[in-house]
């Protein structure tokens, strides 16, 4: 189990690096999907199969399809890839690299500290100590102590839904009785 954890961890990091460095937007998205799948396997290995399945269904299977859909609509050709490659000049990398290297050092420091604590507490590494959490426990946690968070998220989704409905309503009117006046106003 530990080997699968580290392997999928390496795949996730490598794929994410490829996401940043690809010039073609669709190729970058494909690497992002691989990265999300690797994260799903990490969740599974850590004993959260429900979250792993949702990661694949929602992030890799739905959100990323929407991304691919939009990028297909834009129909970026070779010209966009060339422009993107120009932007990725070596000079661009200096600032972000220094900042993220500092963050990485900080993260490794915290992790090393924590691993010692966990080993003290459980007598093993964090991976092997994880018990499997099934979907029922996730549900009880969501509608118990985290009910406020669920309600807030549903409010946010409702706002998005109402907004999308509003936008869709107007495009529908454009084909209907108000077509002439509406397109005239848009032109003037």
């Amino acid at each position: 189990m530990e080997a699968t954890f580290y392997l999928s961890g390496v795949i996730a990091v490598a794929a994410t690096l490829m996401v940043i460095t690809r010039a073609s937007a669709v190729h970058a998205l494909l690497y992002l999907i691989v990265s999300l799948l690797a994260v799903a396997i990490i969740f599974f290995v850590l004993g959260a199969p429900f979250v792993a399945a949702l990661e694949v269904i929602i992030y890799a299977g739905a959100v990323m399809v929407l991304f691919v859909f939009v990028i297909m609509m834009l129909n970026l050709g070779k010209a966009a890839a060339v422009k993107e490659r120009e932007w990725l000049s070596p000079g661009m990398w200096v600032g972000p690299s220094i900042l993220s290297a500092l963050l990485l050092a900080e993260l490794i420091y915290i992790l090393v500290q924590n691993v010692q604590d966990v080993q003290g507490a459980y007598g093993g590494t964090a991976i092997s100590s994880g018990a499997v959490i099934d979907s029922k426990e996730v549900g009880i946690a969501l509608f118990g102590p985290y009910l406020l968070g669920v309600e807030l998220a549903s409010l946010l989704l409702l706002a998005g839904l109402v907004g999308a409905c509003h936008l869709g309503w107007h495009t529908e009117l454009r084909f209907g009785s108000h077509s002439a006046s509406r397109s005239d106003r848009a032109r003037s």
Partner: protein
Amino acid sequence: MNEWAAIWVNLILILAVLFAFSAMLSWIERRLLGLWQDRYGPNRVGPFGVLQIVADSIKLLTKEDWIPPFADRAVFVLAPAIVAVTTLLAFAVVPIAPGIGVVDLNIGLLFFLAMSSLGVYSIVLGGWASNNKYSLLGGFRAAAQMLSYEVFMGLALMGVVMLAGSFNLRDIVAAQENLWFCIPQILGLATFAVAGIAEARRLPFDLPESENELVAGFHTEYSSMKFGMFFIGEYVGITLISAMIVTLFFGGWLGPLLPPLVWFLLKTFIVIVCFILLRAALPRPRYDQLMTYGWKVMLPVTLVNLLITGAVVLSAA
């Protein structure tokens, strides 16, 4: 050692039967369509035309495997493999009979949904990588159609999960010992069947490849075995959806007298024949009708079903 041998025999037999059956399905479909449309269908190669599939596969394998120069090479090659891999992987969780099946996963149902949602990429990327306007249009349609139908596909199954109290497909079959879920979950069955046909891109929901307006949609540029992969993927997809309908709503392997395996195969075959009959009977809708139908009819129906099932489960508890 013995246990491992059993697992491997299980796995290889299921794979072989699945492939053989999916290949045969193209012949069965054409013969049945012929029967319903008052003509013969393929009846020349071998007895009753059974060997037609052999002739077809020789033709597919010996055709030139051509990648258009304007296509995005890597993605073009990757796309047909995705649909074959995801549908076969999804089959891993299908409980065929007690003791027969690849893996007994606690989140089996979610795994099936995850794999079917990843299968979309095959069509979308195939359409995009071909770099051809008809393929691109097919890819657009596939993305929009499958995203919309996936939403209530998952929701339609939640009623079953509520009644069975588990995501494990074997537990779901066991929970149908007394009453198959097709009776209390009739709305769920109807919506899942519609969503399933849409996910398998079968007529009347084959808008991504509608050949009278888009040449062949997303696989216009594909030839030889790359096309064959889409083709096999579609037939494995039909078998998968039928097997899932049987597992979730018609009691899986449960049934009197006959052995469990026979019951499962029989039920699955009947559902597949119903899918083929739908193809023979229904015309293709317009694209906007398809989207309106999905969001304004099917989604509310699944939500109502969920509400009723939830109320019943709560009052019974």
